């Protein structure tokens, strides 16, 4: 396939005040290009691209004979004919001067410094010194409309309805001239009904193909026909016309020799392609070339020219308005310049490509085009052919936009797929393209196999590491789109030493590993090793020049196999060059063949050679055991296949295969061709040939004797462009790796799939063992198929705009680049199988692929496509596919996820249809809950919200919230709380259905990221449900008795933050005073659920979980704990609690020896601190009550006290010193405060209270922060018993002092103090018995314990409490906004 690349180059014609170029035409071997201007003809050499000669007519001659119009090469390139507008033909004879070797011989100056340096500047290519030896002109009666050469004659269509036949010497060949009026025309070759033309018409376009055996003609009235004759000579009496039916607006024609197709361009900007029906001889429409509206939504005017590439695999088509396009043989559009991004001036009428004529030069690597300034068509003239009005119509006054590249000849560079010339490369899954001097290789993995391998590897390693060594965080290689491989091509330049003498490259071959590349140009060959990055060329240049590769190149083991023509010996050969040896004929194995090799292919060690004499030869390749550099070719068989094809050139590809019409049981008898079993298997290999697009299978079967015979050919498919066969069968995926793949252009992809009878089931006679499935392909032209990955790869053009240098230079055009595209085809196969009631086979295929990363996605695509199709169908569908598809997907564990993802991407209007098939979303939701698929369940919640009344949604959300809390899905829980709060209580009673479609828009993105579910909720809430939340806060503020709203979290969406402040104010006033029954039911529910969960965690002693719960859900833990302080917040067993904390926070037990030394050091400090800070120990209860509203909100910021106190300046110093001591390990915070407030208390600079001795294992700093945080929370909430446990673990004397003081000042201090004292006693005994690490610490707080003991009898410290109250009174008065500004310094 052909893709333009880069920019075009612009020719500079060696003429002064030259006239406009008109036509361009390459000669037969496409090395010379004739360029016609209005008054001259120039012959150019294609590479190096230089003008050779030019003949320019004088102004008199131009006025006499008219301007130049058409040009036609004689097939042997010895003559050229130019038709003029005045009805003359000028014949030019071309000869090569013999006394001159080459033109443009470059002579370096004598000055050494000005000589050429690099080797490539001394080019070896000889520019042939052509001269026009003779020129004569012949008048043609009737005026000329078109010319075509047929063998040694020139056919000239005239305006008076004749097709004249001239000899190249200018003599008219009267006996063979045709008169249109005497030719009978009919729809097929049944002469009886043929009638001559009655209307006055003449031929406007003429094209001849010897392989089709006739002329395609376009008549002046827009009809088109094909002229055939019984005789090769085209005897006028036997000539007959066959109409191309159904078209009457034909503008031009082009013939495809290899595939035997006749293409016509039409006025309506479409193309139509006909083939010859072999039975009737009539023209049968093969396909149409219709510009897809997604590429260009309009009508670019009539088709003005069509040209097939030299290898007949692509067709270039241009329109009158501008732009060009490339189509594959059977009608897939490969590229279209109309869809390019031209930047700001993106307007078709300004399209710089305004191509008048074009032709392909050497091997199709270049398209020469004549670009014209004035447009032939602007869309104004033929409105009836333009279904879409173009923009130019609005400005009718304006003249046509001219092309700014106008009246120039451009050479557009192209690259092509190796499949176009070397079909044997279809066996490789490497994607590469060949350009005229370089190869473009896309070694980038599709990501599939690579990732799979990586995961497998990790999996196996994890199993090994069961001993608990922590695994490093393994992130698979980054796969963000920037680093994706799709645009990254490795470019291998073909060395100048080879390309300079062997341009253009004809064949390229890549081995199965992708590391060895071979190229073959005009003569010889060269190959490249990717490892060494080196090319290997012939050491002996004569040997290189001595043969021409004619039949393709392929790799076999360490050998390069070629079919070639030996020039010196004048014979055709198959050669094998060992790749490890020097590239020299001395090492090569040569096998002579009878005729020119046209195609090569191999299967295992079996080589098939197709020759120009239509013989198919099979060879066995073996290695010489004594010499690994030597291979032996032994001929196994030779078959004459001339009956299969009209002409050997029509054979597109030949493939050896083990496929049979009947798939054998998967146990595999040699089908799974491993190298060992090949010798026996090869004998039974069948042949698959593509003859002009018709794919035939010739099986090899055991005859009556024991010999292998070919059975009659079976036609598998028509219109086939490309065939792929898996190289090796994979027992795990037998279906995918034993299938035959055919690409049929516009007809899409065909798969010839094996159907294996089920185990133990006697195979039914009714069922064919193979089935041909076909499905359309819309977005990709496949170049390679990765069978096991269920993926196909293709290439697409992309364009880049570079800053314009000048509008008249080609660099103002978009710069063409290439990118790889891939498509999963699994769902297409499954759908086709399910449609045919072959669900069991579909299931087998799907199960074999369930490990692919996009497996779930392909099921989703399957469901989606069927749903869209059937739900939007206007007519009732008799046998709807949806139920069976749903049943099918249900058999996979990703069923529920698939359904909901598909739902989310479908319009709401189609949901009822879907759920009619899959069942109630409520049930699916419950299933998800049951299976623990919480994220999937949350997606169902959104569906429920749209389909069901709000109360139902709420009920389900509550269930899900419970589950989410239990499993610690915090994000989800948080979103669910928001979701529940967002449900308007008034709507609970309403039916949700009327609003349905507004709630959820169809999700058009085809792929959602794998973890989108949670975000989905906020997405929906944030943008669409948001307004409803706002209405709550605005309209009904007193009604909501919501608990204090969490502070604004950075990730909250805007709608949430808007409602935030309002709710907060309410909550401050109402949270504790308003009785619960005033609150709405759902708020109550949420509270109940959350409180229940918190209680569960607390009673289980899971403090770490509680902290996570609080942090993630911003739960007002302090106020809750305060309520629970005498219930769940009590600790009965202090030892158990301490153990739980150690376990939960992964906190190391204090070491014995280390602990002692530390305690010694610590003791002094502790005492210091106590002396310093004793004043502050009383914490008044009242204060906490008042502060609680804030505290609960300040969850995200643990330094509440210090924050507040910092702001009231008088108290700052004192407060900081005491409170920050224990907290000062939290370095982030203290730095933060210091930098913001500019207050640096001197104590902050002192070393931490308990410097950790290096001997002891460092406690994890993170855990320490958490413990401190919990301790502070508990202190605030006066959950003294838990606080004690934390304080002990943290060995925080200050906290103990606070606790003791707090206990003293509580209302029922007696019980509290008694319980605490009891706890200390428990811990003491525990420490002395089993945890000596705590002994020293407990000893250091003995005074406090003692005071508790004494307090159990009396009380004291009243005065201190009063003092403290004032301090806190100040801090609580600080407005909320101020404190916020401190906490968010940014």
């Amino acid at each position: 396939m052909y893709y333009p690349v880069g920019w075009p180059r612009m020719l500079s014609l060696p003429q002064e005040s030259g006239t406009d170029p008109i036509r361009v035409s390459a000669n037969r071997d496409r090395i010379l290009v004739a360029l016609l201007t209005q008054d001259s003809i120039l012959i150019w050499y294609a590479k190096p691209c230089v003008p050779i000669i030019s003949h320019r007519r004088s102004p008199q001659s131009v006025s006499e004979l008219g301007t130049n119009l058409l040009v036609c090469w004689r097939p042997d390139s010895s003559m050229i004919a130019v038709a003029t507008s005045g009805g003359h033909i000028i014949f030019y004879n071309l000869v090569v001067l013999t006394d001159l070797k080459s033109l443009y011989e470059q002579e370096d100056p004598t000055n050494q410094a000005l000589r050429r340096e690099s080797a490539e500047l001394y080019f070896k290519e000889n520019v042939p010194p052509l001269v026009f030896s003779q020129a004569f002109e012949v008048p043609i009666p009737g005026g000329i409309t078109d010319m075509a050469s047929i063998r040694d004659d020139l056919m000239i269509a005239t305006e008076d309805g004749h097709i004249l036949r001239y000899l190249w010497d200018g003599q008219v060949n009267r006996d063979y001239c045709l008169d249109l009026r005497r030719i009978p025309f009919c729809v097929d070759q049944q002469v009886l009904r043929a009638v001559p033309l009655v209307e006055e018409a003449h031929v406007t376009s003429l094209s001849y193909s010897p392989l089709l055996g006739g002329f395609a003609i376009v008549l002046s009235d827009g009809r088109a026909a094909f002229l055939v004759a019984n005789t090769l000579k085209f005897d006028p009496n036997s000539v007959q016309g066959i109409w191309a039916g159904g078209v009457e607006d034909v503008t031009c024609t082009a013939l495809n020799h290899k595939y035997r197709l006749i293409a016509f361009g039409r006025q309506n900007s479409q193309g139509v392609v006909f083939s010859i029906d072999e039975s009737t001889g009539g023209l049968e429409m093969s396909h149409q070339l219709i510009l897809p509206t997604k590429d260009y939504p309009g009508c670019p005017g009539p088709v003005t020219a069509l040209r097939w590439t030299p290898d007949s695999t692509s067709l270039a088509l241009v329109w009158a308005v501008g732009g060009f396009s490339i189509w594959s043989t059977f009608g897939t559009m490969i590229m279209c310049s109309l869809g390019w991004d031209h930047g700001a001036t993106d307007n078709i009428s300004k399209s710089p490509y305004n191509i008048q004529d074009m032709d392909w030069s050497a091997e199709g690597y270049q398209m020469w085009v004549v670009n014209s300034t004035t447009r032939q068509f602007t869309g104004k003239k033929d409105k009836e052919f333009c279904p879409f009005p173009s923009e130019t119509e609005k400005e009718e006054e304006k003249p046509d936009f001219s092309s700014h590249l106008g009246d120039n000849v451009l050479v557009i560079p192209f690259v092509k797929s190796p499949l176009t010339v070397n079909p044997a490369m279809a066996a490789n899954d490497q994607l590469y393209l060949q350009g005229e001097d370089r190869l473009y290789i896309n070694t980038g993995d599709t990501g599939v196999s690579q990732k799979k391998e990586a995961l497998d590897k990790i999996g196996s390693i994890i199993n090994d590491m069961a001993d608990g060594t922590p695994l490093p965080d393994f992130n698979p290689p980054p796969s963000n789109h920037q680093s994706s491989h799709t645009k990254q091509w490795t470019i291998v330049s073909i060395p100048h030493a080879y390309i300079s003498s062997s341009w253009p490259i004809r064949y390229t071959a890549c081995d199965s590993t992708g590391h060895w590349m071979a190229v073959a140009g005009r003569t010889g060959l060269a190959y490249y090793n990717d490892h060494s990055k080196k090319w290997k060329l012939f050491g002996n240049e004569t040997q290189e020049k001595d043969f021409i590769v004619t039949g393709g190149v392929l790799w076999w083991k360490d050998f390069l196999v070629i079919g070639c023509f030996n020039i010196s010996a004048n014979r055709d050969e198959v050669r094998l060059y060992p790749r490890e040896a020097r590239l020299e004929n001395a090492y090569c194995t040569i096998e002579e063949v009878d005729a020119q090799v046209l195609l090569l292919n191999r299967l295992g060690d079996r080589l098939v050679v197709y020759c120009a004499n239509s013989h198919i030869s099979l060879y066995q390749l073996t290695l010489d055991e004594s010499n690994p550099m030597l291979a032996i070719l032994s001929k196994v068989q030779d078959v004459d296949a001339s009956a299969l094809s009209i002409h050997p050139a029509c054979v597109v590809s030949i493939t050896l295969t083990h496929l049979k019409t009947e798939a054998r049981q998967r146990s595999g008898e040699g089908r799974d061709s491993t190298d060992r079993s090949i010798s026996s298997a090869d004998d039974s290999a069948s042949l698959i040939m593509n003859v002009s697009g018709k794919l035939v299978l010739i099986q090899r079967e055991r005859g009556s004797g024991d010999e292998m015979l070919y059975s009659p050919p079976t036609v598998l498919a028509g219109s086939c462009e490309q065939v792929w066969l898996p190289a090796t069968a994979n027992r795990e995926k037998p279906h995918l790796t034993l299938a035959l793949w055919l690409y049929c252009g516009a007809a899409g992809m065909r798969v010839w799939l094996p159907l294996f009878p089920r185990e133990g089931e006697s195979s039914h006679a009714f069922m064919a063992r193979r089935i041909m499935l076909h499905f359309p392909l819309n977005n990709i032209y496949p170049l390679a198929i990765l069978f096991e990955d269920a993926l196909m790869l293709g290439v697409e053009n992309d364009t880049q705009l570079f800053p314009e240098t000048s509008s008249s230079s080609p660099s103002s055009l978009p710069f063409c680049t290439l990118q790889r595209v891939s498509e999963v085809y699994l769902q297409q196969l499954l759908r086709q199988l399910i449609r045919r009631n072959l669900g069991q086979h579909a299931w087998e295929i799907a199960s074999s692929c369930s490990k692919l990363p996009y497996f779930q996605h392909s099921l989703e695509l399957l469901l989606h496509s069927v749903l869209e199709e059937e739900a939007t169908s206007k007519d009732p569908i008799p046998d709807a596919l949806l139920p069976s598809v749903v049943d099918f997907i249900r058999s996979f564990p990703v069923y529920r996820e698939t359904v909901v993802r598909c739902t989310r991407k479908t319009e709401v209007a189609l949901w009822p249809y879907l759920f009619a098939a899959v069942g109630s979303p409520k049930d699916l939701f419950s299933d998800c809950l049951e299976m623990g698929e919480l994220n999937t369940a949350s997606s169902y919640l959104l569906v429920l919200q749209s389909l069901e009344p709000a109360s139902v949604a709420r009920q389900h959300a509550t269930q899900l919230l419970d589950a989410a809390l239990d499993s610690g899905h915090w994000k989800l829980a948080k979103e669910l709380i928001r979701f529940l709060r967002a449900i308007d209580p008034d709507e609970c009673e309403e039916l949700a259905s009327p609003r349905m479609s507004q709630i959820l828009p169809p999700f058009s993105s085809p792929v959602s990221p794998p973890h989108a579910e949670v975000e989905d909720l906020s997405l929906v809430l944030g943008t669409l449900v948001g307004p409803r939340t706002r209405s709550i806060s605005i309209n009904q503020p007193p009604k909501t008795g919501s608990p204090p709203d969490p502070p604004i979290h950075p990730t909250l969406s805007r709608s949430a933050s808007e409602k935030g402040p309002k709710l907060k104010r309410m909550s401050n006033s109402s949270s504790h005073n308003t009785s619960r029954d005033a609150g709405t039911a759902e708020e109550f529910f949420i509270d109940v659920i959350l409180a229940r969960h918190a209680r569960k965690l607390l009673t289980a002693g899971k403090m770490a979980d509680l902290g996570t719960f609080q942090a993630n859900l911003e739960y007002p833990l302090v106020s809750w704990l305060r309520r629970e302080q005498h219930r769940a917040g009590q600790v009965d067993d202090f030892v158990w609690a301490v153990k739980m904390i150690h376990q939960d926070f992964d906190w190391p037990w204090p070491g014995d020896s280390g602990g002692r030394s530390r305690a010694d050091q610590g003791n002094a400090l502790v005492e210091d601190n106590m002396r310093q800070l004793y004043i502050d120990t009383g914490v008044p209860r009242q204060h906490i009550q008042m502060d609680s509203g804030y505290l609960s909100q300040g969850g995200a910021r643990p330094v509440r006290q210090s924050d507040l106190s910092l702001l009231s300046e008088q108290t700052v110093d004192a407060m900081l010193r005491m409170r920050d001591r224990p907290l000062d390990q939290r370095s982030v915070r203290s730095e933060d405060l210091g930098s913001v407030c500019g207050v640096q208390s001197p104590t902050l600079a002192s070393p931490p209270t308990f410097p950790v001795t290096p001997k002891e294992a460092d406690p994890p700093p993170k855990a320490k922060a958490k413990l401190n945080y919990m301790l502070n929370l508990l202190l605030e909430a006066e959950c003294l018993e838990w606080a004690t446990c934390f304080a002990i673990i943290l060995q925080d004397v200050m906290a103990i002092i606070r606790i003791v003081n707090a206990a003293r000042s509580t209302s029922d201090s007696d019980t509290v103090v008694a319980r605490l004292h009891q706890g200390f006693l428990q811990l003491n005994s525990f420490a002395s018995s089993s945890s000596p690490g705590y002994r020293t610490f407990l000893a250091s707080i003995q005074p406090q314990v003692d005071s508790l003991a004494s307090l159990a009898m009396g009380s004291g410290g009243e005065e201190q409490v009063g003092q403290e109250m004032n301090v806190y009174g100040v801090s609580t008065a600080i407005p909320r906004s101020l404190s916020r500004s401190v906490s968010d310094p940014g």
Partner: protein
Amino acid sequence: MEVVCDLMKGPVYLAGEEVTCLITFSNNSKKTLGDAGVVLAWASSQLNCFCTVSDSKVAILDKSVTRKSSNPGHGPQSQQTSFQPTAGEAGLSVLSTPTKILFCDLTLHPGERRTYSYTETVPHTASPTYRGTSVKYSYKVTIGTQRLNCQTSMLRVPIRVLSIAGCMADSGPGEREDRLGPSSPFMEEEGVGDSPADLIMQAVQDITSKRRASYFNIANSRGKVCKFCLYKRSYRLGEDIVGTFDFTAGSVQCVQYSVSLQLREGIEQEYRVKEDQQDKLVTHSKHHEVCLGFSNSHMVLPIPLQLAPSFSTPICSVSYILHFEFVTSVSGTAKQPVPEEEGGSEWQGPSKVDIETMVWDLPITLYPTYPNHAAQASQLQHRIVGPV
């Protein structure tokens, strides 16, 4: 006994990125009853960068360590028990990360295996892997293992390092703190932070994606030859260098031109062997075109992925230039005028063209590409297996 090293992110790394490998020790001997198993005394890992210089081109005082010969050590055969990753390696170890001990005293019974992970950051300032003519920098992860009563065995895992001058990966963490702000210690920090590799590549993208067309009027003593336009001067490895030529702007006819991407390896003054030591130039990619017949043309020059990015070390500097050679016609070829005689006129390309060649250099800078791209061109293995 066998030791296997798996490079988790492939064999190519950016300087500043972490190298993580999983090292598996396995006892592959057949299971026999009563086998005591193999005791490994210890295993340690280290990342080293070796610099090898050519004596004839670089003057280094301590010649003994930089020659191709082995580093002195006690010789690989001696019964040493210490971990000396540089022993037996050619070149001077210019970078050695702290040795990390994987384990001590490990017993593996037949069929058992054990996997350890080893992570090391390649320093930001590290020079890239480079194989020049006078200087070579190569990186290896060395895993040393000692079996009880046996000599130390080394497994060397070559990696390729790409580095960029003035790496700015440090800016990352600071930003993150600002963004998240202080919060409850129970909030799990999400792994959203960009990895060092991402940050480096972002910086590279910023530099290399800027297009600023530079125009050059190419002229010689006879006049102007053409106008050359280059769209940018900084490229990532693997990119195409795209430039356009406008010959209509010239008065001197250009017959052909060639553009090559050349690596220039210069030795710093104090390490030069000779005073006037020339920089070494190596051509890596070439675009040649006969442009005589064109009025406008362009070049697309691929940058091979295996090149080292532009860099400099105290010893040498590696930079890149586009080397142009323009072959111009001295006299120019005659153009065909409108013919005056009735038979028209014939024009033929000249059989001889007197030419002059002139050259021009344009410096460009090469930056690293994504390591997984660069890995495509590298022949280094993801997995290295060695005996113990």
